[in-house]
């Protein structure tokens, strides 16, 4: 029939054979600095560092705890503490819910009691995967409670920082967490207890400008970005390019703001040695 000529032909959708080679996700990763292809199993063995150039991949809080404390010693504290919405910021509860789902933690820090080489400690580990590891009420409160727990138990405090700075969505309330955590650290100092700060990639903004920089001993991981203002903002402000290596762990070592830059493989033994040195001795009249 003539009118059939004008009829739209019907197509049948044929699904292509789903015999796509099944590559399990995350089998390998590419090193962002030297482009080396690294197999995930190998990466685990090297504690997530590149075996070619030494690049340190970022770690989640859980991964960090696993490679740092004695097996089975970790007792998590305040795991359920979650963010409210002090400014009534649209989208914020949603953003938090998504981050919680993706990371399986309630906010950007995990704290708890643990042992390292048999030495009891209170440990806090920030997680940059959770809203850039930013500090709002929950991070401020958990850091403060970790400090208070260390004072109560009279044990050293170790905090691994990884943060883009203050949680903008909590506004001034975030800013005040800086004063809160530093006030608690002043009490820890009075109690004569050791605080080791470990600066990991990235540590910037309000976290650097509060508890992260106040350690008796400051360690940093190689290549970690550490500073106050992000480099993009500085470049916009001063309208010039920043020198290579600016705001790296090594830059801070040169400028006198960290005690040691320690590769991840030696971090645990370094912490153990420091804890050991602070566990005995000390005289009243020293």
């Amino acid at each position, binding site marked *: 029939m003539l009118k059939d000529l004008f009829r739209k032909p019907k197509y049948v959708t044929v699904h292509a054979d789903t015999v796509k080679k099944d590559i399990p996700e995350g089998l390998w990763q590419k090193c962002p600095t030297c482009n080396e292809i690294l197999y995930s199993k190998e990466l685990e063995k090297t504690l997530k560092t590149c075996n070619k150039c030494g690049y340190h991949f970022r770690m989640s809080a859980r991964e960090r705890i696993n490679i740092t404390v004695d097996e089975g010693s970790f007792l998590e504290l*305040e795991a*359920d*503490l*979650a*963010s*409210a*919405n*002090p*400014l*009534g*910021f649209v989208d914020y509860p949603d953003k938090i819910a998504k981050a919680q789902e993706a990371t399986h933690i309630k906010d950007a820090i995990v704290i708890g009691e643990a042992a390292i080489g048999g030495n009891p400690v209170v440990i806090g580990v920030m997680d940059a995967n959770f809203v850039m590891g930013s500090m709002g*009420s*929950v991070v*401020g*409160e958990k850091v*403060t409670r970790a400090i208070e727990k260390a004072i109560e138990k009279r044990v050293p405090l170790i905090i691994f920082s990884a943060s883009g700075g*203050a949680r*903008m*969505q*909590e*506004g*001034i*309330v*975030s*800013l*005040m*967490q*800086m*004063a*809160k955590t*530093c*006030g*608690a*650290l*002043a*009490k820890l*100092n*009075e109690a004569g207890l050791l605080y080791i700060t470990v600066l990991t990639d990235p540590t910037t903004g*309000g976290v*650097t*400008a*509060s*508890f*992260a*920089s*106040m350690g008796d001993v400051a360690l940093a991981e190689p290549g970690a970005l550490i*500073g*106050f*203002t992000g480099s993009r*903002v*500085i470049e916009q*402000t*001063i309208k010039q390019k*920043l*020198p290579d290596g*600016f*705001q790296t762990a090594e830059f801070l070592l040169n*400028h*006198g*703001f960290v005690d040691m830059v320690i590769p991840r493989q030696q971090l645990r033994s370094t912490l153990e040695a420091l804890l050991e040195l602070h566990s005995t001795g000390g005289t009243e009249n020293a």
Partner: protein
Amino acid sequence: MPNMLLDFEKPLAELETKIDELIKFSKDKGIDLSEEIKTLQAKAETLKRDIYGNLSPWQRITIARHPERPGTVDYIKMLFEGFMEMHGDRHFGDDPAIIGGIAKFYGEPVTVIGHVKGKDTKENIARNFGYAHPEGYRKALRLMEQAEKFGRPVLTFVDTPGAYCGIGAEERGQAWAIAENLTRMSKIHVPVIATVIGEGGSGGALAIAVGDYILMLENAVYAISTPETFASILWKDSSKAQDAAAIMKMTARDLEELQVIDEIIPEPLGGAQKNPQEAARTLGKSLQKALNSLKKLPPEKLLEKRYEKFRSIGQFISG
């Protein structure tokens, strides 16, 4: 004194000019226009209350940044006697963005510290627009510790867009300087009173504002960052600053509700720049009252309360 006008004040200024013209006209020509003038004056009063009684956060920011708004140096002149400025952090240099020294406040020696912006371009450059470097915060801390040694109360005045971001500031440890102040200030065992007089921006403001009592001028703002930075970080667009200002809760009333500040100091209608003397008088009275009550507290009680003040800030859900 002729004030530089802000945009939202212009309708009022136009009306006032019209009234002045009408008065002059009626006088020159000998025509009685008193009824018309009275009506317009009443209208101007209503407009004034309307404009200044319903200021948006952004309008307050423009008042807080008004070039003629009294700053730390003006309050030092109006509220203190015999101010002697002290310079330098004893490590690197002297930061002109923070001024500090000793003066008498109602006859009693006190240490005064505050951010300083410029009144004109030349002074703004010299003062780095009130953006302090690490040496500024270290000078402030040195003077606070000195105040503690001699049992002098510390009065600080906050007026900064934020801590400076630049190569030198990073090299000399901007973050470390701020953190050190926050930590040490929680233990300074003399009364510390902070007043936000203009802009209170980020850690650069907080670094001299860990106090026992926090006052804030009616049109001052205090926030995690400037609205420009806020918009740039969250929306990658600093031109959305006005939208940011609307949601940041940075006005004195917002901060009182959030229990970040203790008292709002009323300003003359239209802002402190309209009548600096009156603004200073009102502030002076509140400062004196706060100081007198803090001086009655024994040091350990003072520090306990100061700690609790900041310890209790934060909103979260447990479980």
